[in-house]
Structure formats: C-alpha cells, structure tokens
C-alpha cells in the first residue's frame, strides 16, 4: 500500500529531528535504577489489566513521559515520589493514546489503592505538563521499533484497511 509506505519514509526524518535523549534521566534524582525498573514492570502489570482499551503505545508513552519528567524536573525526587509520578505518567499517556482512556477514579481506587487522592494526581499532572511544556508527543521507543521493523521487512503496521469498493 503506497500510502503508508510514503509516510513511513517521511516520518524517518522527524524521528531523527524530534528525538529526545532520555538515557541520563536519573542523573539529578535520588531514585535508584532498580526502583525505576520495578516501576516499569509494575506499569506493564497495570496496563495489562486494561488490555482491551489500551495499546502498546500507551505503555511506551508512559515510560517516556516519566523519564523525560525526571530528566527535566528541577526538584529532585526520592524513591517514594516515583509511585505518584509513574501513576500520573500513565494517566497522561492513556489520555493521549487511547480512544477510551482509563478514568481517573480507576487510578485512584484500583491502581493506587487510595494511596493518592484525585486532587494529588491532578496536581502532579499539571506539574508534569508545565515542566515538559506540553511537549509530550515526541517519538517513543515503539516508533523506532516500528521504523526498524519496516526497514527490515518493508511491512507496514496497518495491513487491514478494508476495501469498501463494492
């Protein structure tokens, strides 16, 4: 299908231009590497419970938002803050990527088990969005993977556009 093919080529350029390096995201933070890894495992677990409405992109977006925030934030966070940041990143990511996003009440009751109130998550959301200056659609790891996949096999990720000419 020529359509997707052409846009894949175009998109490579913006992948290069808009890439954000997130390798040193814990540099200014007092958060340990292993805790971040644990957090990401937990994210997979949480988003796995919502597999009907969320996609892979949601998970990768959550991780990128969390890393980018930790990298850009001026205040340095310690281990016990990471939980709230992770929950809020998932909340933002699901709103961007999904058709029906996970409601905030679910995040309060089912995900954080009432550890954080809705107003706390909303305050964190504002803090994240203001720190990142709303720049949250930069390419994630998944986009690079799709790109490599396309390069290797010349397949596009959306093969099932129906032919409705009848």
């Amino acid at each position, binding site marked *: 299908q*020529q359509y997707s093919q052409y846009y894949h080529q175009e998109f490579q350029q913006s992948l290069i231009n808009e890439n954000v390096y997130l390798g040193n995201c814990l540099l200014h933070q007092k958060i340990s590497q292993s805790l971040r890894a644990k957090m990401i495992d937990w994210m997979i677990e949480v988003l796995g419970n919502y597999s009907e409405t969320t996609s892979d992109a949601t998970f990768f977006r959550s991780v990128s938002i969390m890393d980018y925030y930790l990298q850009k934030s001026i205040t340095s966070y310690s281990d016990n803050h990471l939980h709230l940041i992770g929950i809020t990143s998932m909340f933002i990511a699901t709103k961007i990527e999904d058709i029906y996003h996970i409601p905030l009440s679910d995040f309060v009751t089912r995900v954080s088990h009432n550890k954080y109130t809705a107003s706390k998550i909303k305050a964190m959301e504002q803090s994240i969005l203001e720190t990142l200056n709303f720049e949250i659609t930069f390419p994630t790891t998944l986009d690079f993977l799709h790109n490599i996949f396309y390069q290797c096999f010349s397949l596009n990720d959306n093969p099932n*556009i129906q032919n409705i000419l009848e």
Partner: protein
Amino acid sequence: MNSIIQYQLYLRIENDGVFILSNKQIYDYQFEYNRIICDSQILYQIKDIIYYYMSVLENVRYIKIQKIGEGAYGIIYKAQDVQTQEIVALKKFKLSDYEGVPSCALREISILKQLNHPNIIKLISQIIINKKLHLVMNYYDKDLTEYLKFYHEEFHLKNIIYKILLAVEFIHSRKIIHRDLQPNNILVKNNEPVIIDFGLSRVFSPNLTPGVTQLWYRAPELLQNCHSYDYAIDMWSLGCIILEIALNKPLFMGQSEIHQLLLIKNLIDGDEWFKQNSQFAKFNNLFIDLINKLLQIDPTKRITSKQAIQHPFFQDQFAFIYNNE
C-alpha cells in the same frame, strides 16, 4: 499622571471597590468589565487607563473582549494582550473535576507545539489560571465560508487551495492526522489560509475512532465505521473543501450517515462521473482530474498530499479552476 488619578476616582464611583483587587477579584472584574463595555460609552473611552492598571498588576496579561465561539471543548474569546496591544484568540477549556486536563486539550497543545508552519495556527502560549486551561493563539476574523461569500479572483482561490494542501502535507509528514478538516476550521486573512482546531487530531495509530470529522466532509470509510483508517480521510475532506471553493456551496449536505453515503454514491458512479454532471462542465480539465483523484471512494486509490501538491494543476501557471472560453 493627573488625568489617570481623576479617572481612577471616576471609576471608583462607577464600580465601587474595583481597584482594590486581589488576583481572584481581577477575574471576576473582567467579566463585569466585558459586560459594561458594550453599553457604556464612557467606560469605552477610558479603556486604556483600565489596561494600564491591569498591566501594572501581575498575572493579568489578556483582557477578554467578547465571546466568539463555543463548543463541546470550551469557549473561545477574542482578547487583547495588555503588554503588546495585540488582539489574540483565547481558547478556554473546561477542566472537568473527574479527569484533569481533557484529552482533546492535551492532544491539541502537544501537536501544535510540533507544528511550525505559516499556514497552521501558531500557539503563542498556554496558561493555567484558577484550574482553567487557556490557549493563546493568533486572532483571525474570517473563516473560509465567510470568505467565499464575497467575489474573489480565481488566482487567489487557486493560491488558497495550494496553501491548504501545503499545510496538510506538512501535518501528514509529522505522522499526524487532522481529522476535522472543514471550511469552518480554515481561517483566511489577506488571502492566506490558516488551519486551526487540532482538538480532534492525533498521532497516527492502527486503531482509531470512526466518529470524527463533520458529517458533510466525512470520508466514506468513516461512514462505514472502519476503525483502521489513515491519512486518506483528510484528503477526502480536502476534496470536498476544494469543490466547495469552486462551486461556492457544500458538495454533500447529508442529514444522517446513511443519507451522506447515498449522496456520495449518487454523485460518484464509475470512473467518468464528473463528465455526466453538468455542474462540472465549466471546470478546467486539470482541476477535474485533481478532484477526481481526491474524491476516490477507495482510500488506497486516493492520492497523498505530496502527490496532490505535484499535480499538474498547480504546475501549470495558467490553469485556473474555470474554463476561460
């Protein structure tokens, strides 16, 4: 300075206690002021002095002048920048109590941040005040529907079509689908079009909602509830818009999704549909070819935005929409 003090006194008489303001009161006051400015000539005359006081106080940068639009997402105001005297458009989002920042606002802001193009609206800044999210954008007073009500030279019309295509090509190359292209979302100033309203647009993904775009400009694959469409839906909307520019009236005016599909089916029948219709007899051949390529029912056969730009209709300087003979 003397005159300012006099006016200040005057204002105190007009609206008692207005100038002893806390931040909260300033916003209450703005609404009050907006209402008064419509009927009181005196207050209009001392507008500048009010602006002066507003600018002295911190946190006040924009003063709402009037409401220009309202939608499901929120309200749009015409406003003036106190510091630069520029007229801007303020888009206020209703922040719901349950979901924080609405997802359409999130998508709109993050997408607009990426797009920097002369034919796409520029996001000047975004501010959160009193838990309400405001987007500050350039102000344009005319949209494409209003623009077309007046007579315009074909040269300008062709230029507008070309500029819209350029902007859409730019959007698509960022892997973004606009999903709400319609004449109301294209503003025109000095014969230059500007695309606005990215509230429905999003980054391309394999699974999407079909309920997007205004009904008259909705592509047939959307009408058939297809969940995995792509950039081609924007090209269909563009085809409808371009024909609307040429015919000066909307092409398909369906009342429901079924009616809309029927209208499309009635018009586009076979490969030679445009030859049978007398409406299109006055159009240039190259223009008809472009329309035919845009209004393909099969989304895979529709041309891409890049191919549309390179279409011979735009290469030929003397090809206009209508035949000159």
